[in-house]
């Protein structure tokens, strides 16, 4: 396949950035999207041009490190698929492909397609855990969990923290990410004692980090490579309301 790539190049946070056009030839349909970028980078290097910086690590769709807007879609055209798992057979010969970084206030661009997602770690640090210091745990079978709850908790726990939800959201909100963790832990008995302090802590951290508010646009779930459902946000809202009304005295 021969393709035309238009890629966002930005030397650093201060640079304004611009789209640059690169033709690529002889791309195999069996290549992954990132392997196609590897081919471009090899060529740029030999020509003495700086290769395109992009984040990636496991290349099997689980670490959450890769992520880019491909033709305006977070992670590209294939549903439920991270950029690293997207393969070139999804494109056609002669196509022009636009490649840009995640764009959101909470995710400043570091260079080219690389953004800073520390804000996600801050949300987790704000309450996305169960306080269970090592050694303090009771026997694992002490608290049975109904299979339906365990399965639903798992569904939310599958979030890989890639940030596609934020990139797709018109408000740059990180609510799906936050809600996935809130939902997982609120469905399990282990998560109950901190259920209401958790949701407030996480939402506060979310807002402090510069994410926008949620208006239920739903774009996030469409691009989520792990299919985190929109109703997790409903659950978060319910817990948040209960928490502010009853448990912390806040209004």
């Amino acid at each position: 396949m021969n393709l035309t790539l238009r890629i966002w190049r930005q030397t650093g946070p201060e640079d304004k950035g611009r789209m640059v056009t690169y033709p690529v030839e002889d791309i195999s349909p069996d290549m992954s999207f990132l392997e196609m970028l590897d081919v471009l980078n090899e060529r740029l290097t030999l020509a003495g041009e700086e290769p395109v910086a992009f984040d990636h690590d496991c290349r099997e769709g689980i670490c959450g490190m890769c992520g880019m807007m491909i033709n305006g879609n977070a992670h590209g055209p294939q549903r439920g698929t991270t950029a690293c798992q997207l393969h070139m057979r999804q494109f056609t010969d002669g196509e022009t492909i636009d490649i840009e970084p995640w764009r959101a206030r909470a995710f400043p661009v570091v260079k080219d397609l690389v953004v800073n997602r520390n804000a996600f770690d801050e949300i987790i640090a704000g309450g996305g855990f169960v306080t269970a210091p090592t050694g303090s745990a009771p026997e694992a079978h002490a608290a049975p969990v109904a299979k339906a709850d365990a399965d639903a908790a798992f569904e939310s726990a599958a979030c890989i923290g890639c940030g596609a939800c934020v990139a797709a959201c018109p408000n740059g909100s990180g609510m799906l990410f936050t809600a996935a963790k809130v939902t997982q832990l609120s469905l399990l008995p282990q998560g109950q004692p901190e259920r209401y302090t958790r949701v407030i802590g996480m939402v506060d951290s979310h807002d402090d980090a510069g994410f926008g508010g949620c208006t239920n646009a739903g774009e996030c779930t469409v691009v989520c490579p792990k299919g985190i459902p929109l109703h997790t946000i409903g659950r978060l809202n319910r817990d948040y309301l209960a928490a502010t009304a009853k448990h912390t005295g806040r209004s």
Partner: protein
Amino acid sequence: MDLYTEGNPVTDTRAPDGPIEGRWDSRRFNAKLVNPANRRKLTVIVVGTGLAGGSAAATLAEQGYRVRSYCYQDSPRRAHSIAAQGGINAAKNYRNDGDSVHRLFYDTVKGGDFRSRESNVHRLAEVSVNIIDQCVAQGVPFAREYGGLLDTRSFGGAQVQRTFYARGQTGQQLLLGAYQALERQVGLGNVEMNTRHEMLELIVIDGRARGIVVRDLVTGEITTEFADAVVLASGGYGNVFYLSTNAKGCNVTATWRAHRQGAYFANPCYTQIHPTCIPVSGDHQSKLTLMSESLRNDGRVWVPKAEGDDRDPREIPEDERDYYLERIYPSFGNLVPRDIASRAAKNVCDEGRGVGPTRLGVYLDFADAIQRLGRKSIEAKYGNLFEMYERITGEDPYEVPMRIYPAVHYTMGGLWVDYDLQATIPGLFVIGEANFSDHGANRLGASALMQGLADGYFVLPNTIANYLAAGPFETVEPSHPAAVEARRTVEDRIHRLLSVDGDRTVDSFHRELGQIMWEHCGMERSAAGLRKAVDEIRALREEFWQRVRIVGDADGLNQSLEKAGRVADFFELAELMCIDALHREESCGGHFRAEHQSPDGEAQRDDERFAYVAAWEYGTEQPVLHKEDLKFEYVHPTQRSYK
């Protein structure tokens, strides 16, 4: 041999004596403690945030130590433990199927082909039960039965169902548990988290590990960081083969720099080649993807009986198929350990019976299981793996058998550590895949997660106290000559890499190195091949330093520069791996020497000559071998048989 010299044996591993069941208790009781009020005066650096590093950093901070944590990724949650699929072993015996701490211990020693330390492995089996409790308490969503209790499944090399799992994402869920505990400590101000930072040198002062040199990958700034102890949890070195199931960034740099500073490197040649990975599709391939071993619970492995049979697999009748694992190993069948399954796949492909376009593949067929259990049930167990397979290959494994082939997956070798997980440099501790200690010559499935968390949650936090009790050590300033020297080494090396300005890319060298290693130091090794590999590696390394091209500078994010530093260290490691493989004139576990096999083609150990750990000391001219003899008091070494 002309490639190394031999030094004094290692005689003290600090493992207590007495009955094996009491050794860990005795070590903990006799270890010195640090008063809680004094812990906040002690700083520990932890490099790496996977299962081992993440759990260790969180636990040390909970105990009151000041922790500084480093990872090269943009978040601690990205560490490659996240990609582990199948599960985690624990001797809970919830199935009432005859499991026990002793059986897990026995299976692990046997699975490692009698090349691991009994004391360490027993401790691992003891601690395994606490890990499950800990993870459940953190909210890890393990798979459950309808009654609400934890589900388990079986894994290669075991005849009991002791593997706990969270669909095909067990590593992810366990890592997120550790990550959340870690972030909690970050939020409380007990851990200073440094993401996108790479350790490039170890600082040793007065014989103790006292700090590291790190590069901020975003700004390019190089700094020296100090502590009372340094913990390396930087993972394995499978990427020396270029193609492996490791993440692209996995590297040996942290442990290799420590090795150059005096830490022994043990059993570098012990590499695990995993039998069930998606075959290579072309020259562009940048990594290989694992299909969890758990698939072998329901999938049947076969190839056509006839050479060069090109028919659609669905059209090949039963009696023209060879379910070779079931045929050769009737008692374990498709669930033989990884080393055995991998070599069997290689053998049938060498006979010309491989499948797929490259003929380097075998079928993993779910047709029987789908018929027996229904598609829904297979979907529930393996849905995400089937989807991943379809995305990569474009084929639907519900309809057509999967094609799989072995790929480099895990490295059992690593920095030598004693029973306390301390390296030969005092104050340097090594945990998880980065050390060598528990898996011998072959790791059993679902044991990597167990070891990483055992080391990080339960072992290291106890043993490191014994060392820290002598602290706090004298404050070190960045102007200390040893720190200045370490920093200069790093800066000089970066400068050297950038100034070559040649005509080949880093990846092209890495790919070529990987081909040499796969050819000669992969699934089957021979003396002639390994000698050839040593020569080729040296020549390629020479060429690397004359022809590598890195565009850009060192003052900001430069991913080619990062890769180049890692590949430069892989060259040195690769040579040591080949020397280790050459010197070990026996076959054991993942180390298969063509010259040493039984009449029926199984690995032939030589316990008389090689029942030892090969601990290598760095030498500027040649490496120096130190042998640590292995004693088997509880599990008598036998020819491993899974027939």
